[in-house]
């Protein structure tokens, strides 16, 4: 059951930027405990991009929020380690955690319409952020820096004194991204950053995020239910299902050789304009009730390759190739290490 730290890390000597080890996040509700994230381990180097894919309720947002330790009530980190620059933040006092947020790790939320304080001007958001983390900066200086950031985002600096409701959704998401990168963090977590936006704006926002990431040499965790976006933009991909990491691979590997039946189904459900007679299939059934998840593999009720063992035993995460992990009995019963 307990899967140790993946062995694919190889012989990298230097400390990774982010290292997550058998992380578990639980929601302790009055009706029972939901294991929203279960035994997740991965690491991320500086400047890398990681995609977290999965349906809603798969635990990908919870995973993202746990990295900045903001899992909403009644969620708690139930076990495991989250190391940023080698430092475990799980037990860090709250005031030290606050210095991490915004400077080391920044977060971009899904809905820009409700992510800004409606009674504060845009400029005030920036000034407040800069001066919280760099108390020596004067108000005027912070204001000037905010204007520069806005310019980089493609927003007229004069609009710094406008209120959030005076901006469109796309503009607001640009501002959110600006707030995220303002202090030049090492890692940006973007949680469905374009889901609430128009299709045309979506690509622009993602391009902006990409160019800023490159310019500032940040690492990015992109969380999305849309596997196609992730395939397009991420080096590494984790596919999550019902709180479990069911597959991990490089982008090209995952696209070319998806191993888990769930990943395969996700890929089949992506429309592709180059294939005119493509057969699009939806995944039958719906995600499990997380209060009473099925025994064995959590995907078996919806899987087309269910075997007897899937109903009773939970598969281990096994390696089936270079940097390719999968949690499925199709690739061996005991988790035979093929490498």
């Amino acid at each position: 059951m307990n899967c140790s730290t993946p062995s694919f890390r190889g012989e990298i000597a230097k400390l990774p930027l982010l290292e997550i080890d058998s992380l578990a996040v639980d929601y302790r509700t009055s009706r029972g405990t939901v294991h929203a994230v279960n035994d997740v381990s991965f690491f991320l180097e500086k400047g890398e991009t990681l995609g977290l894919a999965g349906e809603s309720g798969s635990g990908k947002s919870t995973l993202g929020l746990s990295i900045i330790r903001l899992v909403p009530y009644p969620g708690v980190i139930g076990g495991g380690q989250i190391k940023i620059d080698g430092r475990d933040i799980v037990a860090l006092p709250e005031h030290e955690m606050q210095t991490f947020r915004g400077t080391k790790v920044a977060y971009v939320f899904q809905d820009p319409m409700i992510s800004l304080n409606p009674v504060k001007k845009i400029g005030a958001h920036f000034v407040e952020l800069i001066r919280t983390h760099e108390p020596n900066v004067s108000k005027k200086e912070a204001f000037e820096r905010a204007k520069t950031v806005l310019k980089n985002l493609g927003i007229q600096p004069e609009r710094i004194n406008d209120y959030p409701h005076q901006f469109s959704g796309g503009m607001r998401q640009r501002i959110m991204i600006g707030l995220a990168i303002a202090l030049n963090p090492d890692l940006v977590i973007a949680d469905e950053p374009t889901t609430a936006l128009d299709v045309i704006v979506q690509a622009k926002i993602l391009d902006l995020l990409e160019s800023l990431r490159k310019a500032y040499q940040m690492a990015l965790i992109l969380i999305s239910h849309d596997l196609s976006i992730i395939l397009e933009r991420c080096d590494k991909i984790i596919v999550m299902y019902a709180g479990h990491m069911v597959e991990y691979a490089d982008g090209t590997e995952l696209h070319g050789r998806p191993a888990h039946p769930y990943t395969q189904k996700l890929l089949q459900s992506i429309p592709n304009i180059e294939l005119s007679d493509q057969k699009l299939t939806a995944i039958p059934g719906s995600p499990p009730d997380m209060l009473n998840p099925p025994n064995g593999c959590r995907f078996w009720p919806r899987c087309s390759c269910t075997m007897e063992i899937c109903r009773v035993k939970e598969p281990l995460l096994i390696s089936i190739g270079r940097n390719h992990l999968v949690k499925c009995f199709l690739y061996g019963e005991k988790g035979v290490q093929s490498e």
Partner: protein
Amino acid sequence: MGLRSYVITRVLLTIPTLLLLLTMVFLVMRVLPGDPVSLHFEKKADPLQMEQMRHLLGMDKPLWAQYFDYIAGLVDVNYFSAHGYPNLGKSMQSFEEVGGQVFSAFPATLELAIYSMIIASALGIPLGVIASKSYNSVLDHLIRGFGTVTYAVPVFFLGVILQLIFGVYLHWLPTGLRINPSVVPPPTITGLYTVDSLLQGNFVKFFESSKALILPSLTLGLILSGIFIRLTRTNMLETLRLDFVTAARARGLKDSTVTYGYALRNAFLPILTMVGLQFAMLLGGAILTETTFSWPGLGRYIVQRINFRDYTAIQGAVVMFGLFVALVSLIVDILYAYVDPRIRM
């Protein structure tokens, strides 16, 4: 919409609301009972005396003319400038001008209301914030329990208990009247004793009138604080879950900034609206508090007039309450517009 045009619209909208309110008061006090004069005498007086009173009060006219007199009296500017109060008709008991009596009783109620409101907000809003911050903890349950119990206590029962403790047993505070009877009240400027005594520079009078205010305003404030706790707590809980609060946390902002600058500032708008509505409830509670503490305000005036079956005086006092509530809700709405940039722009 600009702030100015919003304010103008809001003021204009008050006029039909007020007219409606005045009409309803007229319906309840004049039309519904049939004949207030015979009600006043419990049908025991001789017809000539009743006829005389009807004539004196203008109740021998047809109803529509009475209604016209009633509305016209209220907007009669000449009368107002001559007397310093609007024409609310004459008392059935003493045939004095109701307007004068109501206006002289009003400052006492206003003073009580203001101080009660201060106590209720000073107690209720911070406690509500604390409860929401420690959601579902023991502290939250305690504060919530306090709020629920204060809501269920009859105002006058609490008043009597406070009188018993601080007045009868401890002799710390006076249990009635606006100022110690041996002290001459300050000259009337605003009518609020605490303000007037300060304006006069007389600290003895200020001290005495403040002392008299403590128990009544504490009684009413405590009762009201329960509602404030509940409103603040619920609104804070809702606001603390919103994305912009989480987003602020994710930027590493200080807990105090997030709680006050983000959550409370946004929860404040609905709280403000609710406070405006609670003002009406406060005035209801003021009637009972004033009676408990022999506080010579509008509430005690009404209760005394009920005993005399002085229906024209009751009507005048009810109208005064209505005008006051309409004014408060107008002020609250304008404040709201001022605080919320979405309206202000």
